[in-house]
Every structure is written in structure tokens, then in C-alpha cells.
């Protein structure tokens, strides 16, 4: 016998994400889901962003990694609340993982919660965790073909940080193509060129973020 089911497979995740979102809204905290391929510079950007904004905005961090606590230790040194999630092989964070660590986050004391997703250009874009916006990084050394090869993340993100621009003199990358293809996929995408090594561009990004948080 055939039975019609017609149910979205991610419905369970989306329901928990909506619950998380309600918790965030009640606590008055703005939430960013930060995504990129492995090593594009998410933790480095977190460090720079915290240093830039710490005086004005109360920030907390959830670190998602397959294994290890290195990233959380880098954040902990800055004196902001941080929780590490190890997915044990899972290539993305899902809403339930976030929900389980929320009791460990002093949400009421925070203005901004940044969730560093697992380094992966594909899967994290598919799973909402309850964030206000998704932000992605692409390091310029990854190449200008990435927007069209991994369109979903570019379409889902509100901002794209092109990181490691200090490396531009040493690599062949067509920045105009990255910008053009990214905007074609997502005309509303806000783009920043930054270097977490030199600090270039960080203040522009931090200002943009601050206006969102303070809204």
C-alpha cells in the first residue's frame, strides 16, 4: 500500500531552530552563524572581532569543531564566555546541538552570540540553528571559482568576508570575479575585504555588525 507522507526532512531541525530563536529573542541577544571552509579564518576573525568590539558589545561564542578544543581555548584567553561543541565526525552544527549548550551560555548578559560552525563549505548552509543572520568567510587563497561551485552558502549568507587579503600579492585570484559571481547569486550580499593577520578591514566589518546588534 502506498502512503503519502509529504514532510520536509529538515522540519525537526527547523522546529528546534525556531525554539532557539525564541530563546535568543527573549534574552535580547543577536546571533550570528559563522561559516566557511576549513581554515578560512573563522577563529582568527572571532579573535579580531572580539578585540575590536569588546568594549562596546558583550560577546559570547559557541565553537563547533569535529574534535578538539583549540579554537575555544583561543577565545577563552580573551575573557569572553565560550562553549566548545565537538560534533564527533558531524560536518555541521544542528539546532539540537546548540540547544543543548544554551544553559552554559549567560545569554541574558550578552548582546551578541557568535556561533563558529564546523569548517565546511557545503553542509552548514542547510541547517538553521536559530541565528539572526549567516555570515561566511572565503579566504582569497581558496580561489575565485568557489561561489559558483558552492552556491548555496553564498545564497544563504547576509555577509561575505573575503579574508587573507594580505596574501593577494602572492596568489593569482580574480577578486572581481568573486565579487561578481557572489552578487549574482545573492544581490543583497554585503562584502568586506579583510586580513585577520594585519587587521585591515576589520573595523568596517565591526561597525556594520555593531549597527545590527544595536538595532
Amino acid at each position: 500500500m502506498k502512503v503519502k507522507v509529504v514532510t520536509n526532512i529538515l522540519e525537526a531541525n527547523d522546529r528546534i531552530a525556531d525554539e532557539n530563536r525564541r530563546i535568543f529573542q527573549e534574552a535580547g541577544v543577536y546571533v550570528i552563524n559563522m561559516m566557511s571552509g576549513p581554515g578560512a579564518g573563522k577563529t582568527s576573525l572571532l579573535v579580531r572581532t572580539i578585540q575590536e568590539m569588546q568594549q562596546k558589545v558583550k560577546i559570547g561564542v559557541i565553537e563547533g569543531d569535529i574534535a578538539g578544543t583549540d579554537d575555544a581555548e583561543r577565545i577563552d584567553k580573551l575573557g569572553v564566555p565560550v562553549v566548545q561543541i565537538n560534533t564527533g565526525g558531524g560536518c555541521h552544527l544542528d539546532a539540537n546541538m546548540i540547544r543543548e549548550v544554551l544553559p552554559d551560555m549567560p545569554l541574558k548578559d550578552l548582546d551578541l552570540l557568535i556561533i563558529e560552525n564546523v569548517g565546511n563549505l557545503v553542509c552548514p548552509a542547510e541547517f538553521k540553528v536559530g541565528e539572526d543572520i549567516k555570515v561566511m568567510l572565503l579566504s582569497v587563497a581558496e580561489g575565485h571559482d568557489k561561489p559558483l561551485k558552492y552556491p548555496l552558502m553564498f545564497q544563504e549568507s547576509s555577509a561575505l568576508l573575503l579574508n587573507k587579503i594580505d596574501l593577494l600579492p602572492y596568489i593569482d585570484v580574480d577578486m572581481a570575479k568573486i565579487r561578481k559571481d557572489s552578487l549574482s547569486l545573492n544581490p543583497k550580499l554585503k562584502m568586506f575585504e579583510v586580513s585577520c593577520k594585519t587587521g585591515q578591514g576589520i573595523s568596517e566589518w565591526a561597525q556594520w555588525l555593531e549597527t545590527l546588534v544595536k538595532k
Partner: protein
Amino acid sequence: MHEVSIAQGLLDIVIENCRKQGYSGIESIKVKIGKAAGVVPDALLFAFESMKVDTIAEKATLIIDQVPISGFCNGCKSNFTVDDAYVICCPHCNSFSIRVDTGRELNVDEMEVV
């Protein structure tokens, strides 16, 4: 990859459905997966095969119905369908003013039960 989560999600849905309706086994499950949904069909099949073991879907075959990206162009007022995993402009007239209607599906459609 996240095909494992997708396979788990779809198994949860069909098993829960069977439990509620009192079916004892599943012979096949049909899912609709959009080409822009970021899911690799072979990886999903592989994940499903390994995860269905010891469930009432143990004998089930997974049928993946891939849904292409399609939509409507405001420029030339026509419908379009593309083969790629993304669409930037109308394939007929290159207009950017398009509405995308299908391609992001990630649904369990139907199942055959006993």
C-alpha cells in the same frame, strides 16, 4: 557529509509515521530532493543503506526523485528549467529578474508499507 543527517531525518519521519498508523514494515520510500538542496544522491543512498539496519525500514529501498531548478522569468515572461545546481539569470534572455519555484526540495514524498 550531512547526507547522514538527512538519512536520519527521513528515517525518523517514516518510522514515526508507521508507528502512529500501525504499519509493520516499509518496502520503499520516495523522496524529492531538489538539485539546489546541496545533497549528493549517492551519498544519501549510502547513508540510508547503513542506517536503515535494525529498523522497520530495514528492507526498504530508497527512491530519490531529483527535482531540477525551475522558475519564471519576469523579463521574457516565460518558464525555465536548468540542469545546474544554481541559477543566476534566465537561460532564455539572461534577465536577472527571476522567480525560482523549485530546486530546494528536501521532502519525504510517499512510502510503500505493509
